[in-house]
């Protein structure tokens, strides 16, 4: 084997990565420019907000309800004897708002919304529906991408707020029913470390997750090649890449906004 072989492999990988990144950046830029096409996207955005946002609420609330219950139980298990029980409220509230509400909802929605968008647009690409839009003088980016990305960026934070509230309510209910805590104890804990910035942080983080989930789904859908197999590949990629980016962004926001 030639000694340059590993270098060739690494080089090809780096080139592919850079080229993918370049294409993705161009796609994001094109989406930004298409915001100027005000005739096309506003009405469609409302429709997508209902489709991507409202219809995603049940799964997000289901997830956060059980997260709230488990958080309360685990907190009580950890604190027993050492830390006052009202800290259960603090842990449930802080963890739901700062971390688990946005991240778990984001990961769940990358499966629901991201996969849905990639499969839908991918099918439209391989069945020439996107070309058909073009031939009728519609800009497919302002018709398909902008409404979905805006709807995702605006609706994911709303879903996360609902998820946070339901998670905390379920944590409180668990504390009441299973941990023999009182409401005042739980609320005392909840208020102990509460900072209004936590809500801003949660919303900001969720906006970025909503953006990433939808733009990655749209990009993968738009670049689908081949038939059904290509749609499957695009859908899987959309979910995997969005999930990874959510975790990277999570760390990024923590490092930039939570440093004292």
């Amino acid at each position: 084997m030639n000694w340059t072989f590993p270098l060739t492999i690494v080089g090809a990988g780096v080139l592919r990565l850079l080229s993918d990144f370049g294409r993705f950046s161009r796609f994001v830029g094109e989406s930004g420019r298409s915001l100027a096409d005000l005739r096309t996207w506003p009405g469609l955005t409302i429709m997508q907000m209902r489709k991507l946002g409202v219809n995603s609420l049940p799964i997000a609330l289901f997830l956060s309800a059980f997260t709230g219950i488990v958080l309360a139980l685990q907190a009580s298990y950890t604190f027993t004897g050492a830390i006052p029980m009202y800290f259960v409220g603090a842990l449930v509230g802080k963890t739901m708002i700062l971390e688990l509400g946005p991240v778990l909802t984001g990961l769940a929605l990358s499966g629901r919304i991201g996969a849905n968008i990639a499969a839908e647009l991918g099918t439209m690409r391989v069945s020439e529906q996107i070309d058909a839009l073009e031939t009728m003088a519609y800009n497919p980016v302002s018709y398909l991408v902008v409404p979905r990305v805006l709807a995702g960026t605006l609706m994911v934070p709303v879903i996360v707020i609902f998820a946070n509230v339901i998670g905390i309510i379920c944590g409180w209910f668990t504390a009441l029913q299973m941990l023999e805590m009182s409401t005042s104890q739980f609320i005392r804990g909840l208020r102990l470390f509460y900072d209004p910035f936590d809500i801003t942080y949660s919303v900001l983080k969720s906006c970025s997750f909503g953006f990433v989930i939808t733009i990655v789904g749209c990009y993968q859908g738009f670049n689908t090649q081949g038939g059904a197999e290509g749609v499957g590949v695009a859908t899987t990629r959309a979910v995997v890449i969005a999930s990874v980016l959510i975790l990277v962004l999570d760390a990024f926001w923590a490092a930039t906004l939570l440093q004292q």
Partner: protein
Amino acid sequence: MSIQLTGIHKGFGPKQILRGLDLNVEEGETVSLVGFSGAGKSVTLKHIAGLLMPDRGTVVVDGKEVPKLSRNDLYRMRLDMGYVFQFAALFDSMTIGDNVAMGLRQKGGMSEKEIQDRIAESLDRVGLEGFQKRLPSELSGGQRKRAGLARAIAYRPKYLLYDEPTSGLDPVTTEVIDRLIIRMKEDLGVTSLVITHDMKSAYAISDRIAMLFEGRVVEVGTPDEIKRTENRIVRGFVEGRPEMIEEAEAKAAAAGGTDPPTQLGRPDLAQQADGHHAGRAPQRRDA
């Protein structure tokens, strides 16, 4: 109002699809483009609509060079163009009525009543009366194809590009579509380029027929000229005789690998082609 394709080269990765394609469609004319599957007929059509840009060569529609148009000018040009897709490309989430209305709404200048009337008229023309509320998934393949045709003609384009409008249709529906293509030309003076494999249709609807082979147009002529052609590749294709094509390819290869279609076809086309084809061995048809 004409379409001119000059020296179009187009490749996808290592695969070269078009190799110096030249074709003119004059105003009000219907030209059928025939050729083997995978020869690049749909790719040619997409160049005219600006969905694909050539690697070399140029496309001129209505005196405007398509690859050089700004996005707004390209969209303006497309509103004068109807495109019938091979597999209809209907929007799954919309009713047939909404599908047909898409181009009308984008073009603007019509009231909702006028739009509804035009939808009904277009569906009527293709034999789909009362299909406005149906979804594409509720239609058969042939009906979907006709709905796609209704969508393309609804906004009265000056140009119509048909990608196999009759493939997979029964003989009666094929005849209906053929008559519609002829009527679009006679009533509205539409300039059309039709991709088809169906030679009976091609003879019926075309003013001229062009044969695409190995990335270039190797023969253009009226239906009568095509029927009487001496080009054995074209003749083999239109008469469905593969042995004639194989024989022509073998002869060309024995003569030194000169490109068989241009050698056997029209000498004027051989002169138009840029010299880099000379000496190239015959390509596989499915390349």
